[in-house]
């Protein structure tokens, strides 16, 4: 197990390097020039020389390989370059916002798992009954309804029922945890509903599949209590595909909360993404893509380690 884990962790390093190279190359292909956009933003007329001077100052005229080297050298030190727009370090720009997105993603995951596990399990065990149909209707709804729209409904519902807006904006978790949770629970709910639907449906089908396996019949033939048959023999096997879905959805949340963040007026990473694209801020965009990609890699690592913990066949693989 330890050997598997260590090997798997070491494998992260080449993956990240490959990601970094890929991100750099892909973004050089993006058309448009930040300098022009930035300098003409206020509507002034700027001469070609001034643009050139600015490009020089920002290091955009350097040959590509030099840019690449300074980028790759900076990475291990946490230096993602400076934002071409705000001229503050990219790491700082992202750092100030990622905590919020991360917290939201984790909160949504917790909510989703709390909702999905009972729903998925009940749905599988009572397959074909009314209860199952209700749960399946709920979960297909969760997948069909966009989460930002659910967010808007939540806000509107709050206004018409309680006569006031849910608390928008954010206080840091460390300053005032309760208020922070109270503020984030609404966006987390609107995202978590969809999330839980995906997980619950996955869990339902994998439990159903596992329960028809031969070893479940063996367990029953041994006279094991039905509850233990499900929990001890069934669940652990059914968790494998479910864990994958949870991991993928989580990683997706980090970069994919753009609209929900706007609805709830949260200053997270999604909004930063949109800004960097609109402003053609290559350095910031590069940093953001890299951050999200890194999260993906690490979430996958965690999923793989969980897999190994759950399934001895993977653990003992030589």
């Amino acid at each position, binding site marked *: 197990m330890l*050997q598997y884990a260590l*090997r798997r962790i070491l494998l992260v390093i080449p993956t990240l390097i490959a990601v970094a190279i890929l991100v750099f190359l892909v973004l050089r292909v993006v058309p448009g020039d930040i300098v022009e956009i930035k300098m003409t933003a206020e509507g002034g007329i700027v001469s070609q020389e001034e643009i050139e001077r600015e490009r020089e100052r920002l290091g955009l005229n350097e040959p590509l390989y030099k840019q690449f080297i300074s980028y790759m050298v900076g990475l291990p030190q946490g230096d993602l370059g400076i934002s071409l727009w705000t001229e503050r370090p990219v790491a700082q720009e992202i750092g100030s916002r990622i905590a919020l997105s991360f917290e939201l993603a984790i909160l949504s995951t917790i909510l989703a798992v709390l909702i999905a596990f009972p729903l998925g399990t009940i749905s599988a065990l009572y*397959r*074909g009954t009314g209860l199952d149909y209700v749960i399946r209707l709920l979960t297909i709804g969760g997948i069909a309804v966009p989460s930002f729209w659910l967010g808007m409904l939540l806000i509107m519902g709050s206004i018409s029922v309680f006569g006031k807006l849910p608390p928008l904006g954010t206080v840091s978790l460390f300053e005032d945890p309760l208020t922070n949770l109270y503020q984030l629970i609404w966006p987390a709910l609107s995202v978590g509903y969809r999330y839980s639907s995906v997980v619950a449906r996955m869990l339902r089908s994998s439990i159903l599949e596992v329960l028809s*396996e*031969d*070893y479940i*019949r*063996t*367990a*029953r*033939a*041994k*006279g*094991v*209590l*039905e509850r233990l048959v499900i929990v*001890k*023999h069934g669940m*652990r*096997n059914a968790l494998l595909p479910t864990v994958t879905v949870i991991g993928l959805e989580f990683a997706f949340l980090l970069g994919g909360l753009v609209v929900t963040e706007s609805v709830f007026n949260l200053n997270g990473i999604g909004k930063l993404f949109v800004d960097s694209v609109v402003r053609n801020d290559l350095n910031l965009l590069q940093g953001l893509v890299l951050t999200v990609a890194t999260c993906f890699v690490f979430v996958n690592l965690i999923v793989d380690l969980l897999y190994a913990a*759950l*399934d*001895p*066949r993977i653990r*003992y693989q*030589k």
Partner: protein
Amino acid sequence: MAVNKQNSKKTEPLFSDDILLDVKNLRVEFRMKNGIVRAVDDISYQVRRGEFLAVVGESGCGKSVSALSLMRLLSERVATITADHVLFDGIDISRIPMSEMRRLRGRRISMIFQEPMTSLNPVLTIGDQIKEPLITHLSMTEEQAEERAIELMAMVGIPEPKNRLPQYPHQFSGGMRQRVMIAIGLACEPDLIIADEPTTALDVTIQAQILELLKDISQRLGIAVIMITHNLGVVAAYADNVNVMYAAQIIEKGTASDIFAKPAHPYSIGLLRSVPRMDKPRGGRLATIDGLPPNLMNPPTGCRFYARCPMAQDSCSQAEQVLEKTKGSARHETACALSEKALKNGALIYERNVSVQGSSTVDKSGEPLLSVTSLKQEFAVSFRTGWFSSYNGSVKAVDDVSFDIYPGETVGLVGESGCGKTSVGRAILHLNDPTGGEIMFDNISLNKNSIALVRQDMQVIFQDPFSSLNPRMTIGEILEEPLKVHNIESDAEKRSQRISELLVKVGLYPYMSNRYPHELSGGQRQRVGIARALSMEPKLIICDEPVSALDVSVQAQIINLLEDLQRDLGIAYLFIAHDLAVVKHISHKVVVMYLGQIMEVGEGEELYGDPKHPYTQALLDAAPIPDPEIERKRERSILKGELPSPINPPSGCVFSTRCPKAVASCSNTRPELLRVGTDHLASCILLDAG
């Protein structure tokens, strides 16, 4: 080593008259979308304490379902079980609440399933799975259970039980997993073990080990066993009593000698006569039962075997047949109004298709059609052995194999799984490019390029009739494809005429060319596979386990068909199979393989009658013969251990690690194939010395 079977020669039955299980009118119905299937239809039988009862029948006859319904393991969502009573030691287990049934399961009635590979939970340790019933039923502590689990594992012959306890199922071989299943079944010393095809997925030597173990332990502990199987040899070797099932009903029951010596139901007679016999001389066709079992959703009135019965009378289709005592022995019952006639005539009722001319002879005066010389097939393997180290090597799947096939000859290739027999076939066809040796076919030396010249002359039939036909093509399209590809018939009209001829030739009907594979039965699909091979008018057909997925009565039909085609068309076969009796029946010459090497080659009669190599002897000993009289007298030595890893084969003679006759020098030198008779070769150094 040798297990003496003298003890079972006693005339007294080993079991008492104390009835343990009394099943009366058990009925199981499945609710399907388009109707109700009565999978078990009013069966009644009894099992005495310590009795070994076999339930035989072909697939779909309801034997497994009836066993699962005893344990009430069928999903109540789809299955309805009714019975007058199912008394287990006086308790009606068809009526007690599920919670009480659960307390009996694993405690007093255990079950062993067919598929050892999937019947154990992959994420729990072997120890946990053996301990589970002990902790559940006997309230043992973890330590007590562990101690008992080690005891049980030793009892079922798992070496180093203590070290293997914390291992997982994937670290066990199929045979070892089945031992684990038996250990689980025995854990609480039950009164009854139900074994559902416990050895069907295992090799014949492992099968013998497992069945001996089961028989031995059940006798010692006085446990009754219900064994469900389709293998009549296994029944003859181990069962005290037999129930024969057909189309959801028990159609005959009695002691093993009743059923095998004096079968009174035409179906039982047909079943017994359709099995090729290892102990009988070759020649003659196998008896076949025509047609297919009835659809259980809408079973016919009267006798269910009526449509297929060779001695049926009109009255048979009117009256329901019920089990009645025969004129034979006291325990013998059968559900046939004409049983007296059946008893008297026996196999003669199948006369019309038994008595056709014997097998063909081979003319060996000319050149061989196929000549394989020193064939080698290595596969690269690599796996991690440590942090940064890995093993890169090769497996010798086929190692220095040579044999000839003459025109019109059938050469049988036998051996246990992993012996390389399929690799030989694939190498000859160049589905895998051989890594050494020479293959001459029709005077052409085969290689990557020249194989295209002989593709038409060399065809193949695969094992699985279900997956080797494209489900989205009709039978006609499947048969038309090779005709088009090889440009044999350019005219569409003539092609379809040709397809009709082919279908008739393999015993199907021309109208079937519009059907899809799923609309045909397994035997019919295998016939399509044969028709596809025949369409090229080949000189050689490589048959890779062509009948092992089929029921015995269908197997007999296919074997007869292959023999007829050989006689009419002079085709040669390379017949790859693991069933020794089938190979004996169909082959002129037999090649025995072990771990990629040839152990022995000989004419069928001579090889089976006087095997020279210890491995051949062990294989023959392990294969049960469907005759309890012979089985009772037979002294058999059962091979110990399992096939060694082909990655790291034993030095010297590859069989030396399991050979009962091995001497020290066996592990030093690799024996050569020695001539031990006309056309009889064996590779064993002991033969050299003697």
